[in-house]
Structure formats: C-alpha cells, structure tokens
C-alpha cells in the first residue's frame, strides 16, 4: 500500500521536501512509519521525541494501523496565537 507523507513548518527544512510517498506492507503502524522516516531523514530523526503525528486531520497514537491512501502528517509542536 501507499501513503502520502506531509512535513509541516520547519520539518520541511529538515527533510528538504514538503511531501513524499511511502510504499508500506499492510498492517504497518504510524509509529513504524515514523521510525522509517527518521532513518531516511536523520535531521528529522533527531526531533523524534517532539514530533506530532496525524493521519488526515486527526492526531493518532503510534499504534494506529495505516491504510492504503492515508495522508500522514509530521510536525513540530504547534505555536498558534
């Protein structure tokens, strides 16, 4: 299956791109995808503890199982206001 990955705020600078597409085995979790991306983009890996993870428009826990066509977002702590 394929999922789209979006990077927001300065995570775009850390990865050098705003989005990418990942091909994953069925049943892969959000946490496993995060590990894969952290290895692929070492500067993103360094921010692992403060990374927020969402699927579509909702936050999801690391155990969340991804589906084909999901849009995953990774971003740093939010700072609105």
């Amino acid at each position, binding site marked *: 299956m394929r999922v789209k990955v979006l990077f927001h705020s300065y995570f775009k600078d850390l990865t050098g791109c705003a989005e990418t597409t990942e091909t994953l085995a069925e049943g892969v979790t959000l946490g496993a995808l995060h590990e894969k991306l952290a290895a692929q983009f070492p500067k993103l890996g360094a921010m692992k503890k403060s990374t927020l993870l969402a699927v579509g*428009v909702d936050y999801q826990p690391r155990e969340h199982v991804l589906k084909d066509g999901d849009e995953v977002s990774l971003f740093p702590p*939010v700072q*609105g*206001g």
Partner: protein
Amino acid sequence: MIRQLIITHDPIDETALLADRKMSAGMGAVVYFLGVVRGEEDGQAITAIEYEAFQKMAEHQFNLLFEAMAKRWPIESVRLVHRIGVVKVNEPSLWVEIVAPHRGEAFAACQWLIDEMKRVVPIWKRPVASTAVG
C-alpha cells in the same frame, strides 16, 4: 451555539467583527481577546512573525474544541480569527470572542480555548528578523 472560524491572510478587522456580533437577551458577558505580535521574540528584535497553518487540520481541530466548549459551558457564540502569513509587529494575529450568560464562564471558556489551541491546532510561527521585511 454560533461558531465562526476564519483562518486568513487578511488583516483582522476588529470593527467589522464587532458589527457582526449576535447576542440574545439571555446573555450577560462578552470576553474578547486579541493576540498581537510583539517587537521581540526570545530576546531578539523582530519586525514580524510568519504564521503557517496546516489549514484543513487546523479547521478540524478548532471545530473539535468548539464542540467540547459547547458541551462544557452554556456559550451562545464563539468566534475566532487567526491570521496566517506575515503579521507585522503591533498587528493582531488572533482574535477570539465568547458570548455567554455570565462572566465566569465566558472568561473560563476563552482562556481554555486559547490554551487548547496552543496545544493541538497545527499553526506554527517563524520570527522575521529586522532586515528581512521591507
């Protein structure tokens, strides 16, 4: 509950927002907050802050917060405007208004909404240093 959410590049027009307020005879309190860009960030002089939003998720998360407010307090109206893009020093980036029967719940809800926004709504800021803005 009236809900109005605007995430926009346009300047916040307080006067126009005031003119649009709806308030029934049972309501006794309006609390209104304006967040304004300050001339320094972490001790550095800045000329502006650039705000970025993941817009569709920001809208969804704001709506979840409005939903939770409606369950918790007897609020008649919540309106929120967040400006994105470059906001210069001394200009507002955030405007929030709560209309409720009583003062206590209006203040509590307004502060809660801003606290929660800063926790969950995907908006980020980047200071613009003195030389970078024309």
